[in-house]
């Protein structure tokens, strides 16, 4: 039975459970809903939850385990010799899966009957050609071992599918029956629905945390592989970035890190004053009508894809800076420069800083403003001495968030600052960042066993640690000032 149908059946049972549970609850109270412990819908929801949730949970686990189990049982059918011939076990197994799926397609298309499929043998039929007729392309001729394994795979898969459908539907029905029988006038359906909601919320947060952990681990393993091939000292302290895929490359982190920090600092120098002042104007000075127009306009900036900013850097800001600053000052002739990327990235970050700061400044209680005005302070004195100190933790948070964005930005750097790693103080020189090099090392034909490709993971992990450090710092600052002010 296809998965979608199974899913629909479970949901339909859930809906049925809802209706039945609700009816039974009302009937148990003699038709008067006021006699019930909970509202009738809670009884219905309770039965629906008991029907759907365990069934779907089992389905999810089954879907994860089924391929693993079948694969383990089929692998043993393939002799070692066949594996050596093709290269690796996973390649053979993917062949097996393709043949098995191909046979399914052929049966579905009517090119083969179910009985014919079972009796297939490589001696009588050219399986590859037969499958090719229904649009399943195979890489090479199908060997008897692979065909046998594929047939076995199919058989196991079909049995497992049937078992799965049966089990899930039975579970749903059992859940429905259990929930239905528990529904009585005094049953606390409201409390059990509450617990189900709590479980749902906990599941969501657990998933979010587990994903983060998963990302870190995947990076960690590859980074570990990298450091087995390349000395960590030379990575962390190397001053040269010269990858060459023939081997013998220099993969020093310092030039990339320097580029990242240099560009980020310029971006923050542009975005923080402008963003913060804009936020102060919006929150403290601007009239209602002006704010209603200007705030969304600034926020539009946040919605522009970074590649568009990159184009802006490439065709407008870069040549402008080169013609009016770099060349007259004798600092360079390149339109790709740290300055270009930094300025454009700064523009991109303005809405982050201004919009967050604006909200934070608005959250400063009016009583503090009144207190300051009541003592004869002017507006800017009030802003500087009362509002900004009160809003500081939030503003620092906003700035560090912007810094994290700047460090992780890629497109603007590629188009604005170029892709050449350099270690220089000249802001009009082309430089590049960690993120650009991660992209660079992983695009194209890469061999995942060479340090030149694996270095991307080490770079990624370094970046992750840096942004994590920034976030921890932000949390620390926010907490420190909170203690002082509240």
């Amino acid at each position: 039975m296809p998965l979608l149908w199974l899913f629909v059946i479970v949901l339909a049972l859930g809906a049925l459970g809802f209706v039945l549970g609700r009816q039974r609850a009302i009937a148990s109270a003699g038709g008067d809903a006021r006699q019930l412990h909970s509202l009738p819908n809670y009884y219905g929801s309770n039965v629906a939850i008991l029907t759907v949730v365990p069934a779907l949970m089992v389905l999810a686990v089954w879907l994860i385990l089924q391929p693993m189990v079948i694969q383990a049982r089929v692998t043993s059918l393939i002799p070692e010799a066949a594996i050596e011939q093709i290269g690796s076990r996973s390649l053979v197994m993917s062949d097996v899966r393709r043949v098995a799926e191909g046979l399914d397609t052929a049966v579905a298309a009517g090119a083969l009957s179910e009985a014919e499929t079972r009796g297939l043998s490589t001696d009588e039929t050219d399986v590859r050609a037969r499958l090719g007729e229904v649009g399943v392309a195979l890489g090479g001729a199908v060997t008897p071992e692979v065909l046998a394994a594929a047939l076995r795979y199919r058989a196991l898969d079909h049995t497992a599918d049937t078992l799965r459908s049966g089990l899930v539907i039975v579970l749903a029905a059992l859940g429905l029956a259990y929930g239905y029988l528990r529904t009585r006038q005094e049953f606390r359906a409201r409390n059990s629905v509450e617990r189900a909601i709590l479980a749902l919320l906990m599941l969501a947060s657990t998933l979010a945390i587990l994903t983060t952990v998963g990302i870190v681990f995947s990076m960690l393993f590859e980074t570990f592989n990298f450091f087995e091939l390349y000395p960590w000292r030379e990575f962390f302290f190397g001053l040269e970035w010269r990858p060459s895929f023939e081997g013998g490359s220099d993969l020093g982190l310092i030039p990339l890190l320097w580029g990242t920090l240099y560009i980020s600092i310029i971006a923050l120098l542009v975005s923080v004053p402008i963003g913060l002042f804009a936020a102060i104007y919006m929150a403290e000075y601007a009239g209602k009508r002006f704010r209603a127009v200007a705030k969304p306009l600034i926020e539009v900036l946040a919605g522009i894809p970074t590649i568009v900013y990159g184009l802006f850097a490439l065709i407008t800001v870069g040549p402008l800076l080169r013609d009016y600053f770099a060349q007259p000052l004798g600092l360079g002739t390149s339109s790709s420069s740290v300055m270009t990327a930094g300025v454009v990235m700064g523009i991109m970050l303005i809405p982050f800083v201004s919009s967050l700061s604006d909200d934070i400044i608005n959250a400063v209680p009016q009583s503090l403003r009144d207190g300051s005005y009541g003592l004869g302070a002017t507006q800017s004195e009030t802003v500087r001495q009362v509002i900004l100190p009160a809003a500081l933790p939030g503003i620092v948070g906003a700035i560090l968030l912007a810094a994290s964005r700047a460090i992780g930005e890629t497109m603007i750097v590629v188009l604005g600052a170029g892709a050449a790693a350099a270690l220089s103080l000249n802001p009009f020189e082309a430089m590049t960042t960690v993120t650009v090099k991660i992209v660079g090392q992983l695009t194209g034909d890469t061999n995942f066993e060479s340090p030149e490709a694996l270095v991307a993971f080490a770079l990624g992990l370094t970046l992750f640690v840096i942004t994590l450090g920034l976030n921890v710092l932000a949390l620390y600052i926010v907490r420190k000032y909170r203690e002082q002010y509240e």
Partner: protein
Amino acid sequence: MNDMRMTERGVDSKNIKMKARKVQVFYGTNHAIKDVDVDIEDKTVTAFIGPSGCGKSTFLRCLNRMNDTIDICRVEGEITLDGEDIYDRKVDPVQLRAKVGMVFQKPNPFPKSIYDNVAYGPRIHGLARGKAELDEIVEKSLRRAAIWNEVKDRLDAPGTGLSGGQQQRLCIARAIATGPEVLLMDEPCSALDPIATAQVEELIDELRERFSVVIVTHSMQQAARVSQKTAFFHLGNLVEYGETSKIFTNPDDPRTESYITGRIG
């Protein structure tokens, strides 16, 4: 007993500090204050009483032009401080507010240290020539606000860490540090417990020696305890204004009597 205390405290000075004539306040189209005439005497505590929404706080905020910060608010009529119209174009509202200080309903210490809270006004108005002089102003203000002994050992602690009553006295210290001539208090005790209220009331009585104090209050007992003059507001009108003892014992207007005896409001 309260009435006894009230009559003992004579009014020492009859100088008119602030004078309001035909004051009208509009919030948008809402006519919030109608034709109010009040004379605020120097070195006197004047209480504004009346039911909620009667305009007493609005009128109080006219006296130091705090209503300027509200866009839709419009004030007409004449209010003078020492004979000078405070709504005149020449008058800088910022300077005016240094002379007419204000204490708010809810204690609102700044998120700064106790010292910086009190030093805030003197610093922005340049009242102290040096650190020593500023220290002196801060200490004097805190002493006058009757909170010095409680905070002298922790002037660097945040003002927001004090208790509600202490915070309100800190705000009073902050207001008197700029050396105002008139101190406006908008229900200064409504967020305080009875003990803190008693302390603040005692303080108001002491402050009368130096400033003229205008207090808005919902508590008629409080008005009777602390003030020499009382103004009764009702629906944006000033119904009656006079000696506190007279307002509370023998009011002219039947509406005043109804309010004081608890029949309206």
